[in-house]
């Protein structure tokens, strides 16, 4: 591993006690940060420092710290999950920053994701979009033998590309309209490419879009910021597929 110098940083962090209070940025100095730390480990160190100084630690969501659970995510210098392509906040390492940097850290900003505290937001709206149709209606015990449903390998690969969405919400944070179209599209596209998804295909597209809109997410205007921010590198081509699914369903669905 190449040797790196330690970093001295200024962190400008969003502090907000709860959903009902006004928030503000506060500046903190952090010295001797090892470049081998992850971004969240750097925040851990900040919090230890705050506790020593008698200030309440910065609240931030995190769990697996290996890029798969989708719990973590903050906006770093204006970019959801920071500067690295295809990388969650927990997998971002401090070697990607320079000594003397000012790092601005904010929560996801979207009216559908109200702030809980500091950098923590409420993303339950995503669960409600899935409840609207992001499933196959099969009861436990009803399934035929696994190999009775043949799935061509390229279809499986396409479905898997979409199913890899971790539900973190970076797409919403990146979008100027706070649209959750990439999230919604990932689920619709995953199931639209598999025979199992076929029977409920039309209802799924219609209902998930309806819920998406009711929850207060904006419309998609094809700026592709979502794709650029997505740590799971979900392609906007899934939004194109969602649009096709939705149009077909609108034209042909039985009400």
């Amino acid at each position, binding site marked *: 591993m190449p040797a790196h110098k330690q970093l001295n940083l200024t962190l400008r962090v969003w502090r907000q*006690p709860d959903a009902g209070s006004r928030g503000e940025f506060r500046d903190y100095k952090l010295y001797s940060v090892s470049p081998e730390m992850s971004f969240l480990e750097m925040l851990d160190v900040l919090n230890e420092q705050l506790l020593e100084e008698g200030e309440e630690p910065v609240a931030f969501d995190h769990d697996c710290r290996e890029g798969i659970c989708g719990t973590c995510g903050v906006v770093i210098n204006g970019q959801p999950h920071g500067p690295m392509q295809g990388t969650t906040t927990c997998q971002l390492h401090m070697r990607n920053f320079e000594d003397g940097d000012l790092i601005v850290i904010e929560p996801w900003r979207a009216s559908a994701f109200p702030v809980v505290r500091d950098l923590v937001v409420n993303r339950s709206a995503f669960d409600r979009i899935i409840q609207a149709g*992001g499933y196959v209606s099969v009861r436990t015990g009803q399934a035929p033998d696994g190999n009775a449903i043949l799935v061509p390998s390229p279809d499986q690969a396409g479905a898997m590309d979409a199913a890899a969405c971790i539900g973190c919400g970076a797409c919403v944070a990146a979008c100027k309209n706070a649209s959750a179209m990439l999230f919604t599209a990932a689920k619709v596209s995953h199931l639209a490419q598999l025979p199992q998804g076929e029977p409920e295909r039309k209802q799924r597209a219609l209902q998930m879009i309806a819920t998406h809109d009711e929850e207060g997410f904006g419309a998609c205007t094809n700026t592709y910021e979502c794709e650029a921010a997505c740590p799971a590198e979900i392609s906007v081509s899934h939004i194109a597929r969602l649009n096709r699914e939705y149009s077909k369903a609108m034209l042909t669905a039985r009400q």
Partner: protein
Amino acid sequence: MSTAVETRLNSRVPTGPLPDQWTKCKNELKLVAPNNKRKFHVIVVGSGLAGASAAASLGELGYNVTCVTIHDSPRRAHSIAAQGGINAAKNYQNDGDSTWRLFVDTIKGGDYRSRESNVYRLAEVSGNIIDQCVAQGVPFAREYGGTLANRTFGGALVSRTFYCRGQTGQQLLLGAYSALMRQVSAGKVKVLPRREMLDLVVVDGCARGVVCRNLVNGQMETYAGHAVLLCTGGYGNVFYLSTNAKGCNVTAAWRAHRRGAYFANPCYTQIHPTCIPVHGDYQSKLTLMSESLRNDGRVWVPKEKGDQRKPTDIPEEDRDYYLERRYPTYGNMVPRDVASRAAKERCDAGYGVGSTKMAVYLDFSRAIEEQGEDAIRRKYGNLFDMYEKITDDNGYKTPMMIYPAVHYTMGGLWVDYHLQSTIPGLFVLGEANFSDHGANRLGASALMQGLADGYFIIPYTVGHHLASQSLKPVTEAHPKFKETMIDARSRIESILAVSGTRTVTDLHRELGKIMWNRCGMSRNAEGLEAALTEIKELREEFWRTINVLGSGEAFNQNLEYAGRLADFLEFAELMARDALERKESAGGHFREEYQTEEGEAKRDDENFCHVAAWEYQGDDSPHTLHKEHLDFQNVELTTRSYK
């Protein structure tokens, strides 16, 4: 120290031939009439594979279900991080697999410390799990003809592992989560996110509800029901550094234990051989690299101590492929405990590599030469990417460095064949129970067990409990609820009242060091005795010096963390005591005093062929040890050999 009682814990294992036991049991279980199911309320704690599958399946049956989770969404549970795959005895590869073989491999992999009947049932339902997941739209890897593909995992000579790239846990959890969301939309399941179970409410000897803290506003909430299902995962974070998510904890299980549920085999922990090595003091967690990598990667260290050459400059003849050397039959695919100990042995002997010398190489150069880099990228691309993000090294060009890390805990709350604990009405599923993996779990078996418990076992056995007990109506107004809630609240208040000088992380790290050094990959009586004293001292230190700021009636992550550490500090002592009491080596529990001349684990079937189930007797009294004898009628107890 502790009182041992030879009890015949009633495991409710059906009689008759092994292959017929589950069918016989199901035939004899009482059923709840369709119209009556809606009169029952089941509380599910946790939303991982076991919790989500159980909550969804019970909702489909018509029960009213409340599912509480500490996460902001049920989809975040740590099952999501499982990478490699899920086992099932489908024999799609025509390589001789069968229910019997999966059963034998799992029993042997667990070093003959699990119940035959439970393990057989697990193997029996394994195929149904794959069918269920496929039907839900889980995108398992496929062959070009569209049939399901398999890979090989450690401890098996057949190819029976189903997988979704390196994200199998994610896809299975999202499948169970989607089934759960469907039931939420149908109105049968209510999911309560950001709630932490802090205690179990026991009324007239039966589990009738839980006390939770609402993590958003800090309010205490109580939920009453007819049965409680704990699906709360394992306790690996007692070691501070582990591959578990930061939020994984023992609190729900430990609180239930204090209310009367026996804790079984807490000393059985799994150290996973292929993790990214520890570097630096600030490190917050360890990252696993899927065991599936051992299919194509070869593990080695230099033959000469302190060889300073770059790994790519070390020629073939100067490398020691120690797993292939010691275990020619299984080679790099030996079970996890064997591979982990072999790595530790080489590093302790001074052959370790990297800056800390606590690492071994995992080398893909031969696989890349034979199959091409693209083929390896297709199989493991996301793992190589993750490795590079963390270490800044390219695993295609230079060997990866790996070292064992705490990964999974086989111990857990004691359950009978119905998955019911020693408290009637309290069922325990998945990693939180002790039941199926004995002293060591084989790769790709955790996902199998979580889903077997939730989809195919609990829907039957909970029904039997509800149909056979005449449970009185109990609501949250019952005095027991208030009483239990006051207990939970006062514990939080006592933590806040200390206002000392040490942070939770600081104390947790210290606990982790004690556990890793004294109760980790290898253990001895002297170290364990010392651990018992050190843990007790550290617990006192916690209650004297802990520093948690802020209020109990607000979103307060540090307070949540402090509560979990307080429980780990109680639990750790039981873990060390169990390890001390088990005077043999078995699977992941390696006692230095009990090993063969070749350094392999040496069991003592004469004296330790039992489950150690510990009963809580109050803070000032030692636990009582109950032993459930393990009866092997179908497999012969042999010394595990992977040579």
